[in-house]
C-alpha cells in the first residue's frame, strides 16, 4: 500500500466513522398535538360485549361478512383488512376470576393507538399516513398509497392491515372515525366505539383530560367506589357507580411508550400479558429519522461524496484508458 492509497483509505474510514458516530444525535420524540384527542380504554370496565366491534364495522362500512360457516356476526380474532377493532381475551388456568392474572381472565381492545410519534407516518415513502397537526389523529390516504406495507412493519402494534384477498386491495386502519366522508370528530361527535360502550370502558375525549382521569383511577384501591363516566369525557352522557374489584396496575399505557399514544389503556393485569409489545420510551421514528438524516444531511453529504468520486473516477479512468 503506497502513501496515497493509505491516505485515501484512511480518509474514507474517517468519513465513514463520522457518519456513524453522529447518528446518536437523533431528533427527540414528537410532542402530543396541541388539541390531541384520544380514548381511554379501561380493561377492568370492559364486559366483552363487543358492541364496539360491531359499531366500528357499521360506521366504517365494513359490514359483517357471512363466511359460510353459519356465523351471522363477524367476531374476528385479529385486525385485518376488514376489521379495525377487536376485543381480545386473556385467560389463565381456570379463568374463573375477572381481572386476575392467576386463574382469571381479562379483556383487551386492539385498534390503532394513534401514536404521538407514529412509526407508520415516519416510514411511509409517499406520505399516505398522516398525523393531523391539530388533533393528532393518524389517518390513511389510499390515493397516495403504493401498497409497500412498510407501515405494517413500522407499526409497533401491527395495526395497519392490507386486504390480501383483493387484487386491488388497500390498507385499512382505525382513523378515529374521522376519515373523509365520516368525520365524526370534526363534526363535534365522538368515536363510534366509545359511543356504544355500555360501561364507559372505551371513553372518548381530549388526551389531556383522559390522562387526568387515568391518573385519578391509579389512586383507587379495590373496594373503593368510583363514578365512571360514559361516552365523551368532556361532556359525559351518563355515569355509573361501581365498586372496584381489583387493583389497577400502576401503569398508564400510552403515557410514555415509544413516545406515547393518544389512545390510553389501563388494566389490572400487566400489559405484556395482554399482548402489548415490549416498548421503550424512545420512538423508533425519532431514532430512524435521526440515522437517516445524519447519513444524508439533506443531501449535502451525498453531493459532496459525488463530487469527490467523480474527480477520482475521472482521473483513474483517464489513466486506464491511456494505458490501453
Amino acid at each position: 500500500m503506497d502513501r496515497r492509497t493509505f491516505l485515501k483509505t484512511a480518509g474514507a474510514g474517517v468519513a465513514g466513522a463520522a457518519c456513524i458516530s453522529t447518528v446518536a444525535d437523533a431528533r427527540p420524540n414528537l410532542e402530543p398535538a396541541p388539541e390531541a384527542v384520544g380514548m381511554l380504554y379501561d380493561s377492568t370496565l370492559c364486559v366483552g360485549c363487543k358492541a364496539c366491534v360491531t359499531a366500528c364495522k357499521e360506521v366504517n362500512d365494513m359490514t359483517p361478512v357471512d363466511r359460510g360457516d353459519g356465523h351471522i356476526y363477524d367476531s374476528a380474532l385479529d385486525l385485518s383488512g376488514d376489521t379495525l377493532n377487536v376485543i381480545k381475551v386473556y385467560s389463565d388456568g381456570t379463568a374463573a376470576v375477572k381481572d386476575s392474572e392467576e386463574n382469571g381472565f381479562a379483556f383487551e381492545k386492539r385498534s390503532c393507538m394513534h401514536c404521538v410519534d407514529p412509526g407508520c407516518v415516519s416510514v411511509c415513502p409517499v406520505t399516505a399516513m398522516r398525523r393531523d397537526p391539530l388533533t393528532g389523529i393518524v389517518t390513511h390516504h389510499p390515493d397516495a398509497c403504493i401498497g409497500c406495507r412498510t407501515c405494517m412493519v413500522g407499526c409497533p402494534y401491527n395495526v395497519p392491515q392490507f386486504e390480501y384477498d383483493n387484487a386491488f386491495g388497500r390498507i385499512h386502519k382505525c382513523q378515529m372515525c374521522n376519515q373523509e366522508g365520516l368525520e365524526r370528530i370534526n363534526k363535534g361527535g365522538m368515536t363510534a366505539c366509545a359511543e356504544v360502550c355500555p360501561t364507559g370502558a372505551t371513553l372518548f375525549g381530549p388526551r389531556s383530560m383522559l390522562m387526568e382521569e387515568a391518573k385519578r383511577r391509579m389512586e383507587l384501591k379495590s373496594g373503593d367506589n368510583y363514578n365512571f363516566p360514559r361516552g365523551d369525557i368532556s361532556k359525559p352522557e351518563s355515569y355509573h357507580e361501581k365498586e372496584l374489584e381489583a387493583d389497577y396496575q400502576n401503569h398508564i399505557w400510552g403515557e410514555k411508550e415509544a413516545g406515547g399514544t393518544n389512545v390510553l389503556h389501563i388494566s389490572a393485569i400487566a400489559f405484556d400479558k395482554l399482548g402489548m409489545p415490549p416498548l421503550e420510551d424512545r420512538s423508533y421514528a425519532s431514532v430512524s429519522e435521526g440515522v437517516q438524516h445524519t447519513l444524508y444531511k439533506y443531501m449535502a453529504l451525498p453531493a459532496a461524496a459525488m463530487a469527490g468520486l467523480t474527480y477520482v473516477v475521472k482521473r483513474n479512468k483517464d489513466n486506464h484508458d491511456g494505458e490501453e
Partner: protein
Amino acid sequence: MSHAKPLGGSIFTPAFMLCLVLFVIGMYFLGVRFTDGMGAVANINGGFPWGIWVVYDVVIGTALACGGYALAITIYVFNKGQYHPLMRAALLASLLGYALGGVGAFIDMGRYWQFYNLLLPWHMNFNAVMLEVGLCVTTYILVLVIEFAPAFLERIGAHGVLKILNKMLFIFIALGILLPTMHQSSLGSFLIAMGYKVAPLWQTVHFQPLLALLTALTMGFSIVIFEASASQVAFDLPDETSLLSKIGKIIVGLLLVYLVVRFGEIILNGKVGYIFAGDKNSLLFLLETLLFIFPVVALLSQKMRQNSRVLLWAAVSMLFAGSLYRFNAFLFTYDPGPGYSYFPSVGEVMVTVGIVAFEIMAYMVMVKMLPVLHKEAHA
C-alpha cells in the same frame, strides 16, 4: 476499447430449457397474484407483511448484485486497472440482479398501479427509508444500463455514440458507486424502524447501516469470484485465479472489519447471552457466524487464496453468510408478537425461483451475443 468477445454458440441448451420451464411456472403464480390478490399466492399476513418477495428479491437479491459496485470501487477509486477484464460480466450480473430486484419490488407492491407516486415530489416523505431506497434503486438501474451500454454499442458497431458515451461515462461510474453505497446502507436502516420485532442479536441502532454496507460489499466481491469461476467452467474460459485471489484478500479484510463491528456491538451491549441461549435464534446466529468465519480462515494464507477451488468455496460460503444474515434479520428471527407466523407458500417460492431463472437465462443469452467475457488469458 475492450477485448471482450461474444461467446457465440447455441442458445437453447438444456440449462436454458430448464430455466425456461421454471420461469413459466413462476409466471403462472404471478398471474394468480394479479387476478386474485396477493393472499391467493403468498403466505404474507398481518404480522408478516414482508415475505420472501421483499426479503429475497429485493434485500438479498440486490446485495448479490453488488459485483459491479464492488469492482467499480476497486478499479476506479483504488485505481486498480488490472481488474478491468472482470468488469463487464460483473456489470451484466448487477444489471440483471437489480432490474429483477426492481421487478420483485413492483410485484410485491400492493397498489402497484400507483407506483409513480414515489416520483411525485408532493407525495415524497423525506424521513422514509423506503423513499430513499426506492428512488436510489430506480436510478441505479438506469445507471447500470448506461454503464453496460458500451457492450451493446460495440456489438452493433455504433462507434460514434460509443466515443461520446465513453467521454461521459465517468459521471455514471461515480454515480454507480455513490448510489449503492446509499441504498445498501439504508437497507440496514429499515431494521431500526422495526424496533423490537427484530431479534436482539440482529438489532443495533447505530451500526445497522454499516453492517448492511459491509455485507453488501463482501457479497459483491464474492459474487465476482463465483461468476468468474462458474463461467470458466461453463464456457471453458481461461483461468482468472490470480486476479480472483487478490479479490479474496479484499474479502478477508472487509470480513475482519465486519466481525469486529458485529461482535463488538454484541459484547458492548451485553447480548452475549443470546448467542448461547440454545434456541432457534442462537442456532441461526451460530450458523451465520460459521459461514462468515469460514472464508476468513480459508483465505487467510496466500497459498490457499491461489487455489481456485478454495476460493470458490470461500466465496460460496460468504454468499450464504450474507444472505443468511439478511434473512435472519428481516424474516427468520423477525417476531411481530403472538399469533403470527410465516412460512412461504409453494407459489410464492416459485415466483422467486422464476425470477431467478429468468436472470440466469438472460445472462446466458447476453454473454453469447454481446462482448462481455474474455477468451484470452491476461494479467
